[in-house]
């Protein structure tokens, strides 16, 4: 265990990190006190997760210095950070379903006798550890089927049994219900009271305000300020995180012409995760679809595009109600989708850029089943130009593009198909600020050309900045429809959380 020395636990000086030419972090200097709860807040892409990963040795900074207990360190792997008592609990928890809780906790550090796991010692050590942490979680429960909150506890115990003096928690309550989140907060407080330093990466400003001792606010990879949490309110944090006026960040949106035809209409639509949803999108209109993660936004998008089975209700486009199953039915009716995860659902990473872009339009670019290669090349060049991507060679694998350009290549694929309605699920996730701005402009100009857009985003700013009208989902239903003056972040959050009032 590192010495309980005096002075700050961690000091960062001028930390910088770039990914493929994009600055994720720039000149970050901050001090984390021993036994404190230090929150990192910022928008998506502000760099808070990256900073957490640098602390835990998951990624190495390009520039700057990291001091632990006053000593400079340069972690080459998470293992080296663990040896210095720093453990990261990632957003995606890693529980082995076939092992028990106790076995999960001691995974890799099991008490052993002659190569066999000493079961009784394992049980005893688990009970001691859980008691010390104040957890009531039986060690013999199977990892399979553990609630997320209990999985969190397993991860925390795992960290503690490795003698963690500093635990980085990335969005620990992101997937938790309210009472579980409350319980986790108690755990975090108890750990801090016992001298463990907690670095809390969180989206939830209320949580930060209640829990943290210190708050560091990041914006676009830069540090805005570090201040005592007592001196901050949700409002002050939010305005510093944003730090931009909406008009500057979002392109102006044209009005929806009165009498514009409805290009997408759902009536009483039910599907897995979606209950009795009705909505309309008109030509030239951007409709924002907001809501918490897990509220059914993606499920709705997939049901609309026939990617998920529909159990009741109808989806109609200008050409009439969709019949049949499968996304090709929707595509034929002019309904195209940008999926949530470009790597898992969007791109064929190992295949050439050209093939990725032309995939949905090959029928048009072929004669008797033979691909017209010159026509394909020209079409791909045109589509890439339209979304503002210049490539050295269309034959290079699409994985060689940056995240933002990969996303734009997906837009190019969809545009080449010439849809009448576009359903875009988190189109700016994981792209840098410049690409974000380009995607905003693209969406606005597409709408101006008469495309109907359904925009799903977790970023309320984005929805407010782009959409003509906002639908908020909660528990698989449309909880609210907001127009005009009623379109505010507070109203979106209130509808998403189902609280009548929720001041932000």
């Amino acid at each position, binding site marked *: 265990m590192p010495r309980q020395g005096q002075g700050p636990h961690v000091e960062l000086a001028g930390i910088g990190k770039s990914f493929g030419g994009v600055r994720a972090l720039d000149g970050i200097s901050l001090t984390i006190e021993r036994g404190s709860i230090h929150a990192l807040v910022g928008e998506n892409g502000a760099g808070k997760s990256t900073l957490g990963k640098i602390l835990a040795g998951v990624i190495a900074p390009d520039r700057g210095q990291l001091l632990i207990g006053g000593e400079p360190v340069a972690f080459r792997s998470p293992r080296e950070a663990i040896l210095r008592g720093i453990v990261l609990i990632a957003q995606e928890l890693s529980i082995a379903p076939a092992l028990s809780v106790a076995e999960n906790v001691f995974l890799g550090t099991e008490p052993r006798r002659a190569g066999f796991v000493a079961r009784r010692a394992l049980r005893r050590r688990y009970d001691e550890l859980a008691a010390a942490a104040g957890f009531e979680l039986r060690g013999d429960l199977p990892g399979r089927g553990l609630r997320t909150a209990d999985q969190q506890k397993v991860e925390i115990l795992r960290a503690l049994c490795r003698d963690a003096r500093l635990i980085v928690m990335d969005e620990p309550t992101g997937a938790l219900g309210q009472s579980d989140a409350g319980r986790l907060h108690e755990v975090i407080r108890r750990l801090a009271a016992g001298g463990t330093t907690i670095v809390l990466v969180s989206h939830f400003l209320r949580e930060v305000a209640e829990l943290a001792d210190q708050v560091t606010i990041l914006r676009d990879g830069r540090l805005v300020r570090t201040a005592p949490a007592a001196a901050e309110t949700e409002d002050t944090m939010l305005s510093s995180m944003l730090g931009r006026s909406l008009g500057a960040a979002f392109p102006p949106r044209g009005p929806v012409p009165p009498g514009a035809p409805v290009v997408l209409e759902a009536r009483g639509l039910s599907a897995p995760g979606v209950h009795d949803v009705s909505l309309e999108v008109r030509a030239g209109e951007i409709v924002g679809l907001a809501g918490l993660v897990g509220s059914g936004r993606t499920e709705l998008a997939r049901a609309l*595009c026939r*990617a998920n089975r529909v159990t009741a209700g109808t989806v109609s486009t200008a050409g009439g109600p969709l019949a049949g199953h*499968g*996304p*090709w039915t929707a*595509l*034929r009716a002019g309904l195209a*989708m940008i*999926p949530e995860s470009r790597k*898992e*659902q*969007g*791109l*064929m*990473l*190992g*295949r050439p850029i050209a*093939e990725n872009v*032309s*995939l*949905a339009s*090959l*029928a048009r670019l*072929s004669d008797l*089943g*033979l*691909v017209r290669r010159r026509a394909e090349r020209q079409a791909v060049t045109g589509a890439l130009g339209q979304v503002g991507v210049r490539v050295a060679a269309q034959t290079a*694998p699409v*994985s*060689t593009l940056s995240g933002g350009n990969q996303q734009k290549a997906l837009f190019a*694929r969809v545009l080449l*198909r010439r849809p009448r309605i576009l359903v875009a699920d988190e189109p700016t996730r994981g792209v840098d600020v410049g690409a974000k701005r380009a995607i905003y402009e693209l969406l606005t100009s597409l709408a101006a050309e008469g495309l109907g857009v359904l925009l799903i985003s977790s970023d309320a700013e984005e929805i407010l900045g782009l959409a003509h009208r906002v639908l908020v989902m909660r528990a698989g239903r449309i909880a609210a429809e907001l127009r005009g003056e009623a379109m505010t972040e507070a109203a979106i959050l209130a509808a998403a959380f189902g609280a009548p009032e929720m001041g932000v």
Partner: protein
Amino acid sequence: MKLRRAGILYPFLILFVVLSVSSAPFFTRVNLLDILDQQSATLIIAAAGTLVLVAGGIDLSVGAVYALAGVTAAHLALFAPPTLAIVAGVAVGLGVGLVNGVIVTAFRINALIATLAMSFVVSGLASLVTGGNLVIDYSHPGFADLARTSFLTVNTSTWTMLAVVIALAVVLSRTTAGRYMYASGSNAEAARLSGVRVQLIRLTTFVISGGAAALGGVIDASRVLSAQASNGETTLTFTVLAGIVVGGTSILGGEGAMWRTAVGVLFIALIGNGFDLLGLNPLYEQIALGGILLIAVGYDAWSRLRQP
């Protein structure tokens, strides 16, 4: 990067040159045409197998289908017109391929297990057809015309092979169906959301594979004028797969090319031919083959790891 794209080509050329230099009978028209003729069934089956692998599947039933089609055609040729025998043999293969495809796509059963199970069923059917005996067609030479007619001094079996391999190469690299195969194997969900009917594409590859395996079986039965229910069918399945994979087509789907398969199959054939011509102990041939296969698969896995 360039090296990776060329892949198997260099080892193949090196082996070719070494054999040409070290064995006088190797670089002769007779020997080279003989190799092609002997490999025609394997090449046809491997060409279709490439489509299956690229689209994200695998077909372990090709050896059994080869045997069933061979005995079916040979059996029919005893008393029916040769054309009917040939058509019936290929049709049996297309039927098995369709069943494979339906099991894999409609019932979502893992292709490896589904086609393995089917290979047992099909082997059993082949034994039923022959009653456990060797079918011999020496008294009905009309059936031999399929493989043994000489056209421009080259056997029709070789011509058929060339036609099938080139046709399937065009399908894979030039048609929309071929693109959809790559897409289905590379990222099935992305393909589906782009309007590709992934299951239909996969089913088609299984049907083609079954038909090709049957054609191979019929050609070989015609070539040697006999067929047997269990004529090293497992060995054939694995030789075909080894050829495809050694060529550089990924076992994980989405990557591969027809020329790779052709070179891979011929590479393995050259190793066998070399062992014969140089009089090496054939026991080592198997070991060498296994080693090469491991290297090929290992190289594929390694280069995927290094992908950005």
